[in-house]
């Protein structure tokens, strides 16, 4: 864990230096906000892909000059970061890639484009065959654009390589996730979330190696039944909107109220690393097809219906032996706040306790949230 604590302490130091060195030698940095942006393509063209943070209230006054006051805090945060020019990652980006996973972001990217070049990938709203065709075109356009941008061609071997690298990162994260099925849990939800957040901006192969090292240590702990909380601690799965770095608000409340988080059914969690891109294709065309297929499998609330998410959630509750689920939606996030009803309906049928929370990045509701979370955990215990 020391490595990840070091990385987050050095969030505005070492990694930024690496990005600057990459840029000095002619490399490009491409920023993204969403797990739909295929990192493999950026890497295959010699670029670095980083997830931009938007998990804190910052530059609000600046952001409100161009955005309405009542809007998702994540959108307000990224706009605030850019307008106040306070994020060295954002400032390192040669291009930012947006997507259409919600109306707020979609329209905000038009505004963001005034300050940094933004390319928007159209994520479909359903998962029909024609949506797969549309998404494949979007992926191909993206590949073309990235090559123009970096001036490097994507070759069958560079793409095969990046597919393998990113899959290895996913595998390491999945290995970590699997270890959390044990009771006592060998690692806290807060530490796991931090690792999942760092996954989006750290150097891919170094990160993968470090996660695997951590898993070796944790396997040792599992063997001697050593956990971060005593065995029998109520186990919770969190689901809902992404928790972008440094948003640890709800996980902190949960894990200081007598429960342990054993999985994140979030974009900063399982949705980011479940499912791999199939390897073994021989040409760029088929590889892009495999990439498009993997990403379209993500259970984002932008899709209608999004039954895959709830089915997966029920499976996770069983696999991770969870006692309950906490649904966290960011304020003003219509897709997840509305979909919470679908989640509630199915979990009720399955007799799985659920707590629904809607909250932003402010701390004004921390007292009430703590009472609600504690009461929910009392119910589980």
């Amino acid at each position, binding site marked *: 864990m020391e490595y990840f604590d070091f990385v987050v302490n050095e969030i505005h130091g070492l990694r930024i230096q690496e990005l600057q060195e990459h840029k000095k030698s002619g490399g490009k940095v491409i920023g993204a906000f969403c797990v739909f942006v295929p990192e493999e393509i950026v890497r295959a063209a010699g670029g670095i892909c980083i997830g931009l943070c938007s998990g804190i209230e910052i530059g609000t006054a600046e952001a409100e000059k161009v955005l309405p006051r009542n809007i998702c805090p994540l959108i307000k945060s990224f706009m605030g970061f850019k307008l106040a020019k306070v994020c060295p990652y954002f400032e390192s980006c040669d291009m930012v890639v947006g997507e259409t996973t919600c109306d707020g972001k979609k329209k905000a990217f038009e505004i963001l484009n005034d300050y940094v070049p933004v390319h928007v990938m159209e994520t479909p709203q359903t998962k029909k065959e024609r949506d797969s065709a549309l998404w494949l075109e979007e992926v191909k356009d993206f590949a073309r654009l990235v090559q123009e941008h970096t001036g490097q061609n994507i070759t069958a071997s560079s793409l095969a390589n990046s597919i393998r690298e990113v899959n290895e990162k996913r595998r390491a994260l999945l290995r970590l996730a699997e270890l959390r099925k044990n009771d006592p849990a060998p690692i806290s939800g807060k530490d796991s979330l931090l690792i999942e957040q760092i996954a989006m901006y750290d150097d891919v192969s170094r990160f993968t190696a470090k996660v695997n090292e951590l898993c070796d240590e944790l396997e040792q702990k599992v063997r001697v039944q050593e956990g971060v909380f005593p065995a029998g601690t109520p186990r919770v799965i969190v689901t809902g909107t992404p928790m972008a770095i440094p948003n640890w608000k709800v996980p902190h409340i949960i894990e200081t109220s007598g429960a342990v988080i054993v999985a994140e059914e979030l974009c900063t969690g399982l949705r980011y690393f479940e499912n791999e891109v199939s390897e073994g294709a021989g040409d760029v065309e088929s590889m892009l097809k495999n990439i498009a297929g993997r990403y379209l499998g993500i259970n984002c609330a932008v899709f209608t219906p999004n039954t895959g998410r709830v089915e997966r959630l029920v499976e996770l509750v069983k696999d991770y032996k969870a006692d309950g689920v906490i649904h966290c939606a960011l304020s003003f996030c219509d897709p997840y706040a509305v979909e919470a009803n679908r989640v509630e309906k199915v979990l009720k049928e399955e007799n799985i306790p659920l707590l629904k929370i*809607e909250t932003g990045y402010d701390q*004004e*509701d921390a*007292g*009430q949230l703590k*009472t*609600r979370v*504690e*009461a929910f955990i*009392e*119910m589980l215990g």
Partner: protein
Amino acid sequence: MYAGIDIGSRTIGLVGLSGGRVEIKELLDTGFEPLDKARQLVSEKYRRVIATGYGRHSARADFAHGVITEIKAHALGASHLFPGARTVLDIGGQDTKVILLNDKGVVVDFQMNDRCSAGTGKFLDVMAGALGYASVAECGEAALTGRGGIRISSMCTVFAESEAVSLMHKGANRADIALALHASVVERAAGMLQRVNYQPPLVFTGGVANNRCIVTLLADKLGVEILLPPEPQLVGALGAALAACNQNNKANNPG
């Protein structure tokens, strides 16, 4: 003797239990140094003190042996006073809670207001002040004499206050406005109860349960009997005291 202490936003209540009987009951205004006030109420004579309410964690850090949430505390207290109760409505100084119980009195679900004080004791407090009544009690009594017909549309304490002020400027009767404000609290509480498909018997706890106007309006609105504890503000402390007693029994008879 076992004690439960409920450190809320407006009042601090303590209940002392001995041999399953309530021996001590205390209720103080929270004031500005809640922990000091709370400390005055506890003493050596209690074998175990369980804290609940907003100040529960500070109390545990200081003198209490354990904590439970207000939700569990009100559930325990209400089921003790009214065995077989299936729903508890608790309207306190800054929170409204609806707690659903199974036939054994165990919490199965609950709802709680998110962050603002709309429809709570604080709301009635601010409104009583805006209308120039000396106390919430006086405002509640006046509201009972009010005539219907006015509707306060805002749930927000700040907006509702300006609505009440503008009604006064238009010449509306004070008691009528008071009635409308009470009705808006009832509207909100009833909505919360209906959203979770509450089941009677329904127990009403918290300081607002002392308000006769609210109780009357709520009973009319829901069309069910409302069970009122003799001291609604002490139900949380009673629940915590029962928890203190239970935990002690469990510790002595493991398994």
